[in-house]
């Protein structure tokens, strides 16, 4: 699971209103390099919840994601590389995602989060 995906995942247990962002429990991380596409990054940036990305990156041990982004930074190669790395190259292979409201644990195995709910949570 990449942080881009994490930026969209939310807990959907019935009645939960603050199910995003999910807290991350890291057991195993993996870095898989991939080609950076600045155009993609510039288009995806406005769609992200930046605070959630910043906090998640921090949990994963990536501390070079700034809290605020100025538009000019999206032209800076150096920033884009760090942005790309945090968003797309770091994978949570084993661990869990935790609902901030209910503390419900969604396990992550082989990079796949299991978001299935039990019958009583539906």
């Amino acid at each position, binding site marked *: *699971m*990449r942080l*881009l*995906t994490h*930026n*969209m*995942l*939310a*807990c*959907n247990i*019935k009645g939960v209103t603050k*199910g*995003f962002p999910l807290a991350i429990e890291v057991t195993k991380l993996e870095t898989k390099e*991939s*080609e*950076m*596409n600045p*155009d*993609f990054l*510039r*288009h*995806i940036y406005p*769609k992200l*919840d930046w605070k959630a990305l910043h906090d998640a990156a921090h949990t994963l041990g990536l501390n070079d994601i700034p809290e605020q982004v100025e538009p000019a930074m999206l032209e800076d190669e150096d920033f884009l590389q760090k942005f790309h790395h945090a968003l*797309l190259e770091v994978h949570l292979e084993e661990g869990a995602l935790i609902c901030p409201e209910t503390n419900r644990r*969604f396990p992550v195995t*082989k*990079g*796949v*989060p*299991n*978001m*299935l*709910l039990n*019958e009583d949570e*539906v």
Partner: protein
Amino acid sequence: MAAVAHYWASCAGGLEFALLKELENLEGTSIIPGIDSYGGVQFRTTSAPQKVAELRSADNVYAFLSHHKKIPVDKESGMAFLGSLAGKIDWEPVMQLHRLWQETEEPDSSSGISDPLLTINGMANVEQTHVTPQRSFRVTGNRICKDMKKHGYTSMDAAAAIGDGMHELLGWPADMRSFNVEVLAWIIDDELLLVLALIYSGNKKKTKNLQNVSNINEPCAEVEDVEGSEQVKSTKKKRPAERPSRADAQLYSRRPYRKALVHTSLKPSTAYGLLQLADVQPGDIVLDPMCGCGTIPLEAINWLGTRVMGLAGDFVDTAVEAANINATGHCDVVRWDASMLPLRTASIDRVICDMPFGNRCGNHKVREVLCPRVVKQVVRVLRPGSGIAVLMAQSKTMKEEIEVNQKAYLNLQKHFYVYMEGLKVDVFVVRRTSEPAPTQQIVRPIKNMAKRKRDGQLTKQAALENLSSENPVQ
């Protein structure tokens, strides 16, 4: 100057627009209209085989042989007609094209098709004389009755008659198992399309089928008779392990991400056709909430590269496993219930989904409840004003959901039919209006629903209770 090659490219009926669009960009190409009963497009091109092999919307490409309408369907004149077909074809350019394709392909010693005759005659013969080199061949017949009762011959009879004609004319030996040339004869009522296969070797990687197919019903096709035809999906017949599967010797089976499959996996060529409708933009997140082995998001990435992010999710563990094996590039896989997507509202740009239809979901009633719920989720997660969804399904309740219940949130841009595997399927292309979605739109589960197991089947107790109560299942 490059020779003009004459092709037939097959695709699901209704998706020809995608092929036509790709062919616009294929150099030196002209479309030949006039064949409408079969899914596909006839064209001539001077482009090299490598270029033709890049067609994403083609299920497969063949050398065009001939097309006939109003063929005799009674036994005697029918068989005579079929036997005469070989003599009406100019074989030289066809075999040149066939050879060109075999040369272009990677030599694959494990393809299981022996070729002793070609090596005996060699290539030199062809240049010096106009005698077509010897080849072993087979004819595969496929016969469908739509508006008529029955042909006076079976598809095997038809194949044999055509084969006899070919043998008489060309002298090639027929060999049903070990052949380097295959002619396919597709008969629909009194129409016949005759083509020659250009792709013979299967997918080099062994594709794994992760779902146990024995406990899922056979898809019910409208095809009345496929006797003698080996173009059935590998799920319909058990085949000996050594023989390369016909499903593997298709253009679409060469996609690099197609390693693990599930029962009735969507063809990448069909996925591409659906993607074409979605007007995917750079920076888009392409979601398939019922992804199976992940074909749709992975086709998007294979086509558009790092311009997009794929998000593939499914409910069943075998599907999630297959998608995870296949996932390559910027695509993540999540296990979820599509009727309750764990995604932020208004976070997705494109949803492209091949919803379960036919007997795939196993239970018609579950499907009719599930599909509208998934539509509600799609409405919720799509970005208002710009989000687009392309949904393929066979579901009356879903049609109603889109056209009536979600009218305020979805603009129906296109609705047409696709014909695949003998089924007529709806395709809806919708654009999200600017109207913000109501939060969650969770349908309050009725009492009976809570007693269903995760795959929708009633638990034993609930089934008994259902029998005695008058509660309709909604």
